[in-house]
Structure formats: C-alpha cells, structure tokens
C-alpha cells in the first residue's frame, strides 16, 4: 500500500489537473460560468431561509443557518460519492488507453467536492457574521472535521467506484440510498428531537458525527464531542482501508470491463 501512495504522489500533477478540469467543466458553457460555484449555495440558502422562516415558521433560532451548515457538509459527501461511483466507467476511454494509478479518478471527484465546499465557505462565513456569530477558537476544528469527512468520503468512493465497474446497478440504487441516508442524518432536524436511545443509534452513522461536529463548532460554539470524533476517525479509516483494498484488487481488470 505504501508503494501505491508513492505512485499517487508521483501522479499528483495529474490529480490536480483532473480536479481542475472537473471544476471547470461543471459550469462550462453557461453564461455565469465559475460564478455558479457561489451562486448555487447562495440561492439554496435564500430559498431555505424563505421557506423555513416565512412559510413554515420554524422556531429554532437561525434555523436556515443551522441547516445550511449541515447541508454543505452533506453535499460534499453525497456529490462526491454519487459522482465517483460511476467515474471509472465514465472515464473509460482514459482507463483503456493510458496508464495511471486508477485511484486518481475517484480522488479527483472527491477533491473537486472538497474544493467546492471550501468555496462555499465564502458564502457561509459572511452569513455567520451577518447573523451575529463571531469567530471563536472552536472554528479551528473545521479543517479537522473536514479531514474526517474527506477520509470517509474517499473510502466509500473507492469502494463504490470499483464495484460499479462490475455491477452497474449501484449507480442507480445509490440515489435512493443516499436520500434515505440524508434523512437518517441530522441535517434538517436537530438530533435533540430524537429520543436518547434512537439518538445513540443515529450516532453510529459516521456522517452524523461529521454533521454534528460541524454544528457544534459553527452553530453551538462548542468543541466537538471528542468520543464521537474519535469514533468517527476510527470508522472512516476502516472504511478507507477496506475500500482501497477492494479497489486495488478490482482495478486490474478495469480496462477490460469498462
């Protein structure tokens, strides 16, 4: 596995250029182009603010902000996993024609999602400040939580992208599965509305850990719950290792199967 890491390092230029082209192709041809990276979360935020404070009249203070924090984190994960599940097949022409460590493909997709997340912070941070939140030392946890989420997303992406080559159904099932997962993760609701036993169960889900940690740091102004955090890292690392192991095993026949 260390050999593979070394090889990936040699191909870092390629990874970077794949990420860039991923980001650039997304809005290519549209009039506003790259600006959409910012307009999208901004509009999402406005829509949710409007619906939850004007129509549904949720009593939770700064609810739209609460939800936005979770939603950005969720989007990183969901778009990353969804898009990388089919990336090997989608980039079949590359896989068949040139050599490179195949891990680059799912990594570039997740990398693009992470960068998108960072760019949407440009919307989130001013919004926090406008809503009366001031930066605190707890904000320093954000990169760490982001790392945790990235590890988990990469692990699952490696797993799913290699399986999808042999089992194309995964790509379609994943949409429904992610929707279910979304509602099992406390993004649109606070985990406090659940009974303690159910809440305990929900925290087994690593994405709950990620979203809860983001919420603690940015919304509640407290440090993340360390037990939860350590658990998250252990699970994510396990997913990463098993996902990569499977990927390495399956990647030998990619060029023949895509």
């Amino acid at each position, binding site marked *: 596995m260390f050999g593979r890491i070394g090889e990936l390092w040699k191909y870092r*230029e390629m990874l970077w250029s794949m990420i860039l082209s991923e980001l650039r*192709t997304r809005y290519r041809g549209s009039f506003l182009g790259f600006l959409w990276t910012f307009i999208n979360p901004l509009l999402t935020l406005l829509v949710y603010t409007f619906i939850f404070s004007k129509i549904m009249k949720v009593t939770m203070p700064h609810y739209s902000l609460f939800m936005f924090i979770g939603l950005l984190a969720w989007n990183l994960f969901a778009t990353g996993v969804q898009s990388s599940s089919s990336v090997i097949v989608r980039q079949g022409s*590359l896989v*068949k*024609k*040139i*050599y490179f460590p195949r891990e680059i493909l799912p990594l570039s997709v997740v990398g693009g999602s992470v960068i998108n997340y960072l760019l949407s912070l440009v919307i989130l941070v001013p919004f926090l400040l406008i809503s009366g939140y001031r930066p605190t030392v707890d904000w320093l946890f954000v990169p760490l939580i982001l790392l945790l989420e990235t590890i988990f997303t990469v692990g699952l992406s490696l797993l799913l992208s290699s399986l999808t080559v042999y*089992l*194309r159904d995964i790509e379609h099932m994943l949409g429904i599965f992610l929707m279910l997962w979304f509602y099992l993760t406390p993004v649109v609701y606070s985990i406090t509305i659940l009974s303690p036993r159910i809440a305990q169960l929900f925290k087994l889900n690593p994405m709950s850990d990620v979203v809860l940690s983001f919420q603690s740091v940015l919304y509640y102004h407290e440090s993340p719950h360390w037990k939860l955090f350590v658990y998250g890292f252990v699970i994510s690392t396990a997913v990463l290792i098993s996902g990569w192991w499977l990927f390495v095993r399956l990647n030998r026949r990619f*060029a023949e199967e895509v």
Partner: protein
Amino acid sequence: MVNKEIVISVKNVSKNFRVHLERNHTLKERILYAGRAKYRDFVALRDVSLDVLKGESVGLIGVNGSGKSTLLKLMSKILYPDAGSVEVQGRVSSLLELGAGFHPDFSGRENVFMNGALLGLSRKEIRAKLDEIIDFSELGDFIDEPVRSYSSGMYMRLAFSVAVAVDPEIILIDEILAVGDAAFQAKCMNRLRELRARDTTIIIVAHDTSAVERFCDRVIWMHDSRVKMEGKPINCIQAYLATVFRASNEGTNTMSFERSENIATSTETRSIQEDARHADLERAIDESGLRWGTGDVVIEQVEVSSGSGSGLVQCGEPLDITIRFSVKKDVEDVDFGIGFFTVDDVQCYGTNTRLDRYGNISLHQGTGSITFQSSDFCLLPGSYWIDVACSAADTQAYDYWRKAIQVQVYSDQNDVGLCRVPHQWSLSKVLIESYSRD
C-alpha cells in the same frame, strides 16, 4: 548491444479476455446467472517471452488480432497479465490510441497541459516546453480551438507532439502514425530517430512493413497469440509477408476464437526458396502474390555475392547476382530480367537480356544458372529488393519473382541520392591552394 541492460522483460506472459456473450452487468442478472456467467475466454497471448534492451527499436508485426496491441498494453500497464510477469524500467510514454486523455471541450493548449500531466509532467515543465510542442504540432491558430473541432490528423499531431516532448525513456506507439499526412509522418520519423539516437527505447506496432524495416533494429512477428519469429527486420518481414499473402490467397485469414494448437512454436525458418522447391509447381509460382508465371521455367534460387559477402556489397564494388533455374519444358526465345527497388518500392534500375541485346536464348529441360555481373555497383547505401524474372519474348512470364532477395549496400562515402553517377571534378583554374582530390 550485448552488454546493454534489459528495460522491458516479458516472461511467460499469458492473457485471456473474457468475451461476454451476454453481459451480466445488472444485479438481477448477476443473481439469476450467478456461477454460470456466459462468457468465453479469448486467448490474446499465450506464453509470450521477450526482452527489449535499452536503446533498441523494436517493430511488432502481425495480422490483426494476433496480440500485438495487447502486448503493448501490458507493457504500458493498462492491462495486467493472467500469468507471467511484465517488468518495465523507465519513464514510459505511450501513444496507444488517438486522443486518449484529450478533453473535447478544452482548447489544444489546455489539453497539452492535461495530457502532459497524464504523462507525468509538472505544469512548470510543460510551460517550459509549450512553445516547442505547439511548434512541432504545426497546429497554428487551431491550438486555441477546442479539440472537438479537430480532425483525426490534428488529434494525432497534438498527441504525438506531447508524447515526444516528455523525454521518455521508453516510447510505445500503436499504429497511430498512419493518420498524419506524409510530411508530418516524415517529421515524426525524424523525431523518433532523434530519440533513438539519445538511447530511447522505441516499440512500434505497425502494418507498414517498409517503415518498420527502415526504422527498427529488430522485428517481432506475432502470430496466433505467440511470438512466431524474431530477428532481423528483413528476414521477419519477408517471412511474414509471404505467410500473410499466402493465407489470404487460401482464404484462411478469418479470425477465430480458437487458436490452432498445433502450430510449431517459435521460429519459422522455412525459406521461400525451400517452399518453392518442395511445393508443387503452380502453387510455388503463385505463392504470396509476389510471384507469378506459367512455370515452364522455375527460378530456384537467387544469390547475391560480392567481395563483402553474401547479400552485402560496398557501393562501387563488383557484384554478382546468380539466378539458378530449372527448365520444365523446352522453351525458345527466353529473356532473363532483373530489377532493383528501394524498400519504398521505387524502381532504381531494371533491364533484361533482350534490352542488353544478348540475342535469342533457348533452354532445354534441366537446370542451369545465369549471372548478372556488375563491375561497379553504383546504388547508394540502403537495402534494395531485387526482382528477377524469366519470360518469353511475348513477355509472357515463365516465372516472375517480386522481391526475390535483398541486397544491402554500404559505403564509406556520404554522397546522397539513389545511385552514384560515375564522375570526376575538374577545375579550370586552381583557386584554392589545397585543392586536391583526396
């Protein structure tokens, strides 16, 4: 060459492809047909071993589906062998298919960066070479157009320009050079020669055997998933062409999943001459599309000899070409002819006994020989094919043999062209002191 290190080592490699009769890609099918997937194995390579030395130029020839491209893909690590091992040392640049890694929506310039990154170059390195790459590609204004609008020739220009700019230690090329126009092809070949001079290892898959012959040090002939023959370009190509054309005439070229098992492995050493001697008359003369005639007189053997040895001559030295023939039926008024062709099939010289006014030749049953003697063989260095023929006065060929044998010409002088015109220089007045004919 003997002491050079091995940069590509292929050991006992086998590779099968699953040919899915019906693809069980969906979950339903996987469950329904679990354990009895419908596929057949297609053997692409069977126990292939070969080594390539540093700085060698190797040509891979063979009919379509013989395993050449699979071998190249194994070397570039796109495919993995089912058995055996492939070891490659050094930076590999591969041109396996047109436009691999090109993004159609981006301009040529942007694609140079992306393609360079695919080949392991940093942006800085690419920026340093960008002008050189664009110049070489001759794409001009098109470099800033999206590659979607490129023709296949333009694709190939860009791909080749990037691939040779990365200073590869090993370059693998699969046939794609055929797309470019003649001028660019020549430019590519020159570039490859430069790389070769810098000790780059080059492996080419090509169907243009004359290009392979001109360029490669060694040829590997793949046939039915195995290495059928390897060695000097001339020998391999001659044997290959003879087999392919014969098979084509017999209609046995159709591809099939089942590879014949009974083919004697390794090298086929039967020469065309032996074939002609043993096979029955008509077949022999019809052989490989390079020979035709009635068979009343059959050319058995052609020998090229000079002071330098057989098949080799120094420009300006005497050369003998001996044609041994057997006469099956008494014939009168016979001509013997000879022609010299470059490997590109340009005729350099041709004549026959009638043009040279040797009068009537009549032959009786039996065997004999005739020798073409040149006291001053003046073709310039290169390899030349020799056509020989025995024909009747009305130009009906008894036996016309295209490319019967090859002669290699070498020289210690660097004059250029096709042949050396007998000449001398004379100056009316000695203008330079040191003037002398050295």
